[in-house]
């Protein structure tokens, strides 16, 4: 039985899948490869490795051989945009290249890589449901997406060059649900949310439980090629905001991009202006291939994932809303002697 290596264990999905793998295969069958240490309670093997170091592929090759790794789960990607784009590029693009080279040389049978549906790029001309064959065309000005795109290109090239090594790429829709904290979910943590005037794209929120299930299914079967992992149904952004009881403020889109860029360069914003595309145009992906190849059917719709997130993150607000309605009903009862309908 060859071991499974997990990279990026400090990322949300990496931590999740590490835990699930330990539960399924036992702590000795899994090795965490990361600069960060795994939770000590897991008792999992840990090898410290920085993918951005010059000879990391050589060290990784030795490590994969020593640990007798058969499967690599590659989750070392930044969900949040970073100001030091150089570091992100080294880790995501070059790190993936190093990892794939080492995996191929070590005779690893399966690589499962985490990717993002955002890599398709949010564009007006996108079809309502992007299939895996659709070209990846993120905004070239967005370093965040460019690095992920390069990682995908490396994965595709290695899959072609090494037919014996299965390289599965899972493109996850934005995660929403208990435990998720990133720049995208943070939109829903404010009372007042700026939104683009005249645009209301459909968006997808993927529940982390569904994400972990799909990732584990990919570790089992590892079909070469890309698979979208998406929730059962998208939701319009404005509807999502209203369901979470936010006050939207509408901003014209040219001003929004400039404003976001200014805030970002001032060190205040959560994301650079090029991300405005993602609240302007849709990047909804189709989950049919994951159903066929991974046997993965999402349990949660976007709305259920959003509900789960709001209940987890803002239980007080949910309670308050509920008690306010109850209070109103009691008042009604006191005044009129009958219960409110």
């Amino acid at each position, binding site marked *: 039985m060859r071991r499974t290596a997990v990279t990026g264990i400090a990322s949300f999905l990496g931590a999740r899948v590490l835990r699930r793998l330990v539960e399924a295969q036992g702590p000795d069958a899994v090795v965490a490869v990361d600069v960060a240490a795994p939770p000590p*309670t897991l008792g999992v093997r840990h090898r410290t490795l920085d993918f951005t170091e010059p000879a990391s592929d050589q060290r990784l090759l030795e490590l994969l051989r020593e640990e007798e790794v058969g499967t690599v789960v590659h989750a070392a990607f930044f969900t949040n945009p970073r100001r030091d784009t150089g570091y992100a590029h080294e880790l995501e693009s070059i790190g993936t290249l190093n990892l794939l080279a080492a995996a191929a040389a070590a005779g690893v049978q399966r690589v499962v890589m985490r990717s993002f549906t955002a890599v398709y790029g949010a564009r007006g001309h996108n079809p309502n449901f992007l299939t895996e064959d659709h070209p990846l065309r993120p905004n070239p000005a967005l370093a965040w997406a460019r690095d992920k795109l390069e990682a995908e290109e490396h994965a595709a090239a290695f899959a072609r060059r090494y037919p014996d090594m299965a390289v599965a790429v899972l493109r996850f829709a934005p995660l929403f649900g208990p435990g998720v904290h990133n720049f995208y979910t943070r939109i829903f943590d404010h009372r007042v949310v700026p939104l683009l005037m005249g645009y209301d794209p459909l968006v997808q929120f993927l529940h982390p439980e569904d994400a972990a299930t799909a990732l584990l299914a990919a570790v089992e079967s590892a079909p070469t090629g890309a698979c979208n992992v998406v929730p059962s149904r998208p939701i319009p952004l404005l509807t999502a905001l209203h369901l979470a009881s936010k006050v939207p403020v509408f901003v014209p889109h040219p001003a929004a991009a400039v404003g976001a860029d200014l805030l970002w360069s001032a060190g205040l914003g959560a994301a650079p202006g090029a991300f405005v595309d993602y609240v302007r145009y849709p990047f909804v992906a189709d989950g049919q291939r994951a159903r066929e190849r991974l046997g993965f059917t999402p349990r949660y719709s976007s709305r259920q994932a959003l509900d789960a997130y709001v209940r987890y993150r803002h239980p007080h607000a949910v309670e308050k809303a509920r008690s306010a309605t109850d209070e109103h009903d009691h008042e009604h009862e006191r005044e009129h002697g009958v219960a409110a309908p």
Partner: protein
Amino acid sequence: MSESAKVVPLAKGKRRRRERPDADEEDLRARVRDLEDEVERLREGTEGPQDAQPATGEGPLVALARLLQGGRDGITWEALARAWSALYFSWHSEDVDEFGYDPKFTRTVMPLFEFLYTMWWRVETAGVENVPGTGPALIVANHSGVLPWDSVMINLAVRHEHPARRETRMLALDMFALLPFLAPALAQSGAVRANPENAERLLRKGELVGVFPEGVKGVGKPFKDRYRLARFGRGGFVRLALRTGAPIVPCAVVGAEEVHPKLASVNWLGRPLGLPYLPITPTFPLLGPLGFVPLPTKWSIDFADPIPMDAHGPEAAEDPILVNRLSEQVRSTIQRMVDSRLARRRSIWFG
């Protein structure tokens, strides 16, 4: 709730931006993450996907009243947000279909379109029973009138006159489907951005799909070219029908060409606005917003016998000669129907 109360401050601590924390802190952080995960797992184990709760159980007026009543101790954010969302959901559904069709929004705007259908344009239909009552089908029509009124009227014709009261998913041109404000409204009222992927997905779901193969050439036709059908794209709609086996129902709309007579077009001004043309009509831009009011012509919508496509098989979609022949057959059928209507028509306004 006590679990989550514990989690919140811990999660905030994680946000400190430090690249290389010392070993103690790292260990502590790992434990925190561990605990957090444990809490999540506990929560999830008991929860699972839940049926969505309605946003607010109250109407917009009640929410507004509560907002104002709160004025004694200051208007609270919660009350404001709740009033705002109650207002929104008074005319929008909480659940839309996968293309964004919102039945409640459609019901809200329907009276305006009903008025246009019955009173303003007095639409007369013929052959609506040619539209299949169930299963996928493709309504192919001539496009005209600067604004896509014809697409709304075809939708209403099938909805009202057809015994199955089917909903037609109209494919909207990019110039409309990408326009701010119009784009979300179109999606909510059931239109879908026209591209082969969307159309195929709808047909495979068994929907009735309406398409205007003339595209921009049709809808932005100058007034002097009225009722002369432009080229039918590159036959994409035929390939689509062949691949899915959906029958094609040719449909001729007469009356729509005169609602906004386009006398000229200012392209240098339209281009920066993202429009393929900026029309000059007798009322626009002369009368400002009144220029958007369409002229009250008399309309007719004719549906021809469906052309079955399943006989050819899906591989026929790769045969360009057959595709062109079928495309031309559909185009000439529609042109014939338009011509015969025009020959019978004595007045633009009264039919």
